């Protein structure tokens, strides 16, 4: 039924039931471009302090769902969002939602690295400074600890004032991860964070994410099913903008309810 790599025992908590401790509630969410629905009436809950993998074929709407959670679609001309999203006490789509606070608490890592055209050090410090979160004289330490955390410190410690565009694509992505973590978010939206990384660095990031789970609700989009199996507690499977299945990782990979999920897991679609 499952491909060989899937027989690796899941590193995640072996829960059989979906968590009832909800961090993010998504209700009847549709994302439209004109009349076309990129995400079609999706309702979901994401568990508190767990890792949820969002999987699905290319173009199935994974990124679109992720971007709906921190209201990034506000900034894309032609996009409209219906339905609602609640994160803790924040009603994300209420007209008086405080986007600054929302986005401080909900970090996002984009599918492609997008460092600021600023020095490596400033890439990390700019956002915390803007939010008044850097203690006086603490900027250097903050920088170092975050770069250590993502495993980038040794590569950049001699050129903190240099341009991030001199870094490799994977290193840039790590820098963006450090930049995101600098705001100590409650929720992390990660769009294929390891797709540009080598196996060793990927493993490092995966263990970092598992550690972060103590504090942070993590949503991770990935095409790497082995990775989803290794780190996720729950899996959300999308196809063509529709929710197909939401299950614990264990159930999704070994005993999915939907035929399409089983086909996807076995590599026959997607």
């Amino acid at each position, binding site marked *: 039924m499952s491909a060989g790599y899937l027989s690796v025992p899941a590193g995640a908590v072996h829960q059989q039931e979906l968590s009832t401790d909800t961090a993010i509630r998504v209700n009847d969410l549709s994302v439209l471009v004109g009349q076309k629905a990129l995400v079609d009436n999706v309702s979901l809950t994401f568990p508190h302090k767990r890792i949820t993998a969002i999987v699905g074929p290319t173009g199935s709407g994974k990124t679109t769902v992720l971007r709906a959670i921190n209201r990034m679609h506000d900034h894309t001309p032609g996009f409209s969002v219906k339905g609602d999203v609640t994160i803790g006490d924040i009603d994300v789509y209420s007209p008086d939602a405080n986007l600054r606070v929302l986005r401080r608490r909900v970090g996002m890592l984009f599918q492609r690295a997008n460092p600021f*055209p600023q*020095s490596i050090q400033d890439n990390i410090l700019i956002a915390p400074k803007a939010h008044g979160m850097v203690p006086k004289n603490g900027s250097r330490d903050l920088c170092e600890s975050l770069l250590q955390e993502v495993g980038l410190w040794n590569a950049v410690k001699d050129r903190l004032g240099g341009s991030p565009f001199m870094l490799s694509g994977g290193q840039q992505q790590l820098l963006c991860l450090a930049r995101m973590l600098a705001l100590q978010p409650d929720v992390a939206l990660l769009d294929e964070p390891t797709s540009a990384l080598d196996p060793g660095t990927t493993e490092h990031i995966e263990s970092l994410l598992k550690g972060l789970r103590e504090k942070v609700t993590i949503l991770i989009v990935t095409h790497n099913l082995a990775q989803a199996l290794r780190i996720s507690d729950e899996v959300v499977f999308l196809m063509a903008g529709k929710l197909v299945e939401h299950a614990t990782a264990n159930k999704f990979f070994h005993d999915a309810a939907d035929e399409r999920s089983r086909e996807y897991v076995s590599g026959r679609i997607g």
Partner: protein
Amino acid sequence: MSTASELTTGDRILRAVSAVAGFLPGGIVGFFAVVMILTAIPAIAFSGLNFFTGTTFTLGNLYAVTTITHNGVTAPHGAAYGALTFIVGTFATSIFALVLAIPVSVGGVLMLTEWVPRRLQNTLAVFLELLAGIPSVVFGLWGIVVFGPIMAQHVYPALTSIGNVIPWFKGPVGAGEGLLTASLVLGIMVIPIIASTTRELLRGVPVLAKEGAIALGMTRYETTRVVTLPYIRTGILAASLLGWGRALGETIAVLIVSGNALNVLPHNIYSPTSTIASTIAALLDAALTDFTGSAVHALAYLGLLLLVISLLTNFAGRLVIKRVSTGALPVGRGI
């Protein structure tokens, strides 16, 4: 590499045409420079350093029969070719114009793209192009008939209070012809150049980079500072230098609104002034009647100076742009 025998006739024609096209711009500039230098040589000999230090520029008594001779060059009685007034006027008006035009155009375009709906932006862009197409003589007329008097009556008097801090702003403000009016008019003429380039540059800023800042809860202002400006800085510099070139050489509008000061340096920012370009235009008619021919040489010397200044600013600009743009991509200085 293809050998000559493989070339078709078409290739050969293309080669010849591109060789000529490649040589042409350099050739034209070179030709201009040589002609200007040759024509200016008598004036260079006649005035020496006085050209750069003297403030008196007069063609002399063109109707008298007496002449003076200096360094072997004969000029009408009383002739003196001190160009300092024009040099100062040229730099003062053009730099002032830039100081006004850069923030207005860059700030304005940034504000528009952030706050105004796309449809309206395109309409405004059309107006910007119209503004760029207005002949400079119209700017000059408008400057002297409408703009200058209004400014002199209603705005400049208010500026005189700055004079307590910066003495140049002290009155009297005059009638609205002079350095400040000329700079303002020039500034308005330069705005379309800088603004339309800025607009193009803004389109080139990657959306993904801006989203990075937005996703961290940063405001539009912060996003602009942290992401947008570093991306467009070099381009704005280039556009400003283009604009500066335009302001340096602009003739007719300045001639009309500058108050045409011949032999005095401006004593405040409202004073009459004149630039190298406007002076050439103003005096050419009279210079042609100079029986010694020396007035024309003097104007050629002015022209040569303008050419050199333009080339220098151009080269300096290129150098700066090269400096700034090496190092892969732009890096700013934090928040």
